[in-house]
C-alpha cells in the first residue's frame, strides 16, 4: 500500500507548481495585465464542475455500479441539506459520517 517514494515527491513538487503558478499569476505579473472577460466567465464554472465530477462517482457508484438507496447517496443528501441551511463547519461531517455508519451497519 506504500507508494513509490521518489515518484511521490516528484508528484508533490509538480502539484505544488500547479498550485503556486495560478495563485501567483496575476499577483506577480502585476495589476496591468488582465484576463479576457469571456475566459474569466467560463473559468467561473471550473470549481463547481470539477467538484461535482470528482464526488459524484464516489457517491453514486458502488464497485462501479449505480445502486438506488445506496447509503452513501442518503448520507450525501443529508450532508448537502445541512450545508445548505447551516453554516456550522462541523455538523456536515458529524451528520454525514453518522448517517453512513448507521445505514451501513443496519
Amino acid at each position, binding site marked *: 500500500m506504500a507508494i513509490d517514494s521518489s515518484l511521490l*515527491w516528484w*508528484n508533490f513538487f509538480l502539484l505544488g507548481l*500547479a498550485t503556486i503558478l495560478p495563485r501567483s499569476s*496575476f499577483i506577480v505579473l502585476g*495589476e496591468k495585465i488582465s484576463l479576457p472577460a469571456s475566459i474569466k466567465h467560463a473559468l467561473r*464554472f471550473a470549481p463547481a464542475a470539477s467538484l461535482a465530477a470528482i464526488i459524484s462517482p464516489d457517491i453514486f457508484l458502488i464497485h462501479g455500479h449505480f445502486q438506488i438507496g445506496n447509503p452513501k447517496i442518503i448520507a450525501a443528501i443529508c450532508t448537502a441539506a445541512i450545508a445548505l441551511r447551516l453554516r456550522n463547519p462541523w455538523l456536515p461531517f458529524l451528520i454525514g*459520517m453518522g448517517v453512513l455508519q448507521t445505514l451501513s451497519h443496519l
Partner: protein
Amino acid sequence: MNNAFWTGGKEGFHAFLPVSIGLIPWALVTGMTMTSNGLSFFQALGMNTIVYAGTAQLATLPLLKSGAPTWLIVLTALVLNLRFLIFSAAIAPGFRGSNVLIRWFSGYLLGDGVFATCTPKMLTEEKLSWRLGYYIVPSLWSWLLWQIFGCIGVLSAKSIPETWSLDFMATIALIVLLIPMTKVKSMAVAAIMSGLASILLKEMPFKLGVITAIGVGILAGFLFERFIEKEHA
C-alpha cells in the same frame, strides 16, 4: 516591519478569525485522508507544505494511490486550481508597489478564505505596508492552522477503526464546498452536467472521464448562462 504593517495585520486577523475556524475540519479531514491513502507522516507533512491546497490534495490523493500517470494528477489539480487565476487577478491591484519576492510569497499563501475576506480593503487602502499586513498576517494564521490541524488529522487517523469509511470524509468536505456554489442557477447546471458526465464516462481509462466531465460541466454552465438565462432576463 513598521507600525502600519501591524495595524493592518491586526485588522485583517480580526476580520478573518471567524472564517478561519471553518478551516479546522478541513485540515483534519485532509490529514486523515492523506494517512488513509497510504502517506507516511513525513510525506503528509511534505504534501501539506509543498502543495498547501486542500481541494487539490483531496482530489489527487486517490489518483496518487491508484498509480495514475503524473500528467493526469497534475492536470486534475490544475483544473481545480483554475479559480486561483481569477482570485489572483482580482486581488493583484492590492499588491501595487510591492516587490516580486513578496508577490510570490503572497501567491503561495493565497487561499479561498483570506481572498474572500481581505480583497475589498486591499483594493481601497492607500498605504502599502498596511495592505501587506492586512493580507499576510491572516494568511500566515491560516497556514499555521492548516499545518497544525493537518498534523492532528494525520496522527488521529491511525486510531480510527478501518470499518469507518474515512474516504467519505473527503467527499463530505467537497460537498460542503460545492453546495453554496450551486445557489447560482448556471453553476448548478454546470455541476449537474459534469456530475452526470463523470458517472457516464467512468469506463474511460486513467480517470480521463473526470477531466472530460469537467469540460462538459464548464461548457454547459457557460451555454446555459449565455443562451437560456439571457432569454428570460
